[in-house]
């Protein structure tokens, strides 16, 4: 009986404490200082948005999940170091939020799929991204702001 009590006490002390998820905001602090971002940042941010960050820590696993979810095209998977452009990010956001888009999106979809240009236009229209050319680079601050607004949009809080 004594042994069981000691074992229980040991488990309660070390076992449960190790289960407590440590608060970690390091990634957001590092990201906020980045002048440009990469596809690795985009895949991580979209995975965070989808609530799968803890399970999918590697770029490859995040990308295969995003392909499976229909967010990334199976035949277009840039390397992790590839610089992220606003058009690419808009397309990821468009698909992650399952947006429908406007007339041009529907007209072009059968031939061209979701285009960067009209995905960005839709994201700008909804207030998720700021007006800019689709070839523009994405800063860390912008990526954090987009993640924030995606969440607000999904919760119906984006004004």
């Amino acid at each position, binding site marked *: 009986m004594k042994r069981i009590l000691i074992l229980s006490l040991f488990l309660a002390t070390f076992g449960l404490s190790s289960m407590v998820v*440590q*608060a*970690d*905001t*390091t990634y*957001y*602090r590092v990201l*906020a200082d980045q002048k440009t971002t990469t596809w690795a940042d985009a895949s991580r941010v979209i995975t*965070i948005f989808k609530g799968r*960050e803890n399970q999918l820590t590697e770029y490859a696993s995040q990308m295969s999940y995003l392909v499976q979810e229909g967010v990334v095209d199976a035949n277009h998977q840039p390397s992790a170091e590839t610089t992220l452009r606003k058009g690419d990010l808009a397309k990821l956001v468009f698909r992650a939020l399952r947006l429908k888009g406007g007339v041009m999106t529907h007209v072009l979809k059968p031939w061209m799929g979701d285009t960067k240009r009209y995905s960005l236009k839709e994201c700008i229209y909804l207030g998720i991204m*700021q*007006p*800019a*050319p689709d070839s*523009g680079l994405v*800063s860390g*601050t*912008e990526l*954090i*702001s*987009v*993640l*924030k607004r995606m*969440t607000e949009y999904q919760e119906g809080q984006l004004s």
Partner: protein
Amino acid sequence: MMKKICFSFLFLFTVVSTVTAQQAVVQNVFGDVEVQKAGQSTWTPVSLNAALSEGDKISTGYQSSVQLAFEDNSVVTVKPLTQFTIHRFKQDGSKVTTNLNVKIGEIRAKVAKGPDFVTDFSVTTPTGVVSVRGTEKSVDVGDQGTDVETHEGQVQNENQQGDVTGVDQGQTSNTPGPNEDPSSGIESRHEQSLSDMTTNVGLTDEEKEFIQDNTDVISDPGTIEGGGVPDFFDEILNDFESSEDNYDPQNR
């Protein structure tokens, strides 16, 4: 001589003792919230009832937030994905000075009004300073610049150029960032091409004036008021297009 030294010490002691550092207490924590204490390099998770003071930095993660109760009864709610520093939090006599430096993210501040003290509460952002006295406001810093929303009372929003705008109750105000508003770049490029048009094709003053007055609608001439586009406008466009075809960056 001894008397003078004693008085000097007494004077210094009085001055130093009236300026007191204040503290903020963590009321609620939700999710990933970390603090970097002033003078330290490590970040540690914030715990309930922890005391924060001048120089401390706070960082919140995704879907995480924290509520801070300041000693002057002001309450600050830090929203998800926010990074800020308690830059100044001091009481000097009856004046409580609070300055929060928000790098990115959103905070909502309910600033206390007190009969016994004067509150000087301000939020510094990359685009300016937002200051209030006895009110409730939200400050949102991101790629759009700084958004200020006044929930109660009035807020003064000062940009980096020193222009001050009042934001009344229920109103919102936006201060775009210096390099973070891509649309301003597009406009300036648009204006530049209009300027090229007027210089390249040798327009009359009347024609130049027409272009300046219709800068906003020039990309959609059908919207120009007054029954359509003057004949010279088509000529200008044609001339400009041909000059663009012959454009040589080396000889510019």
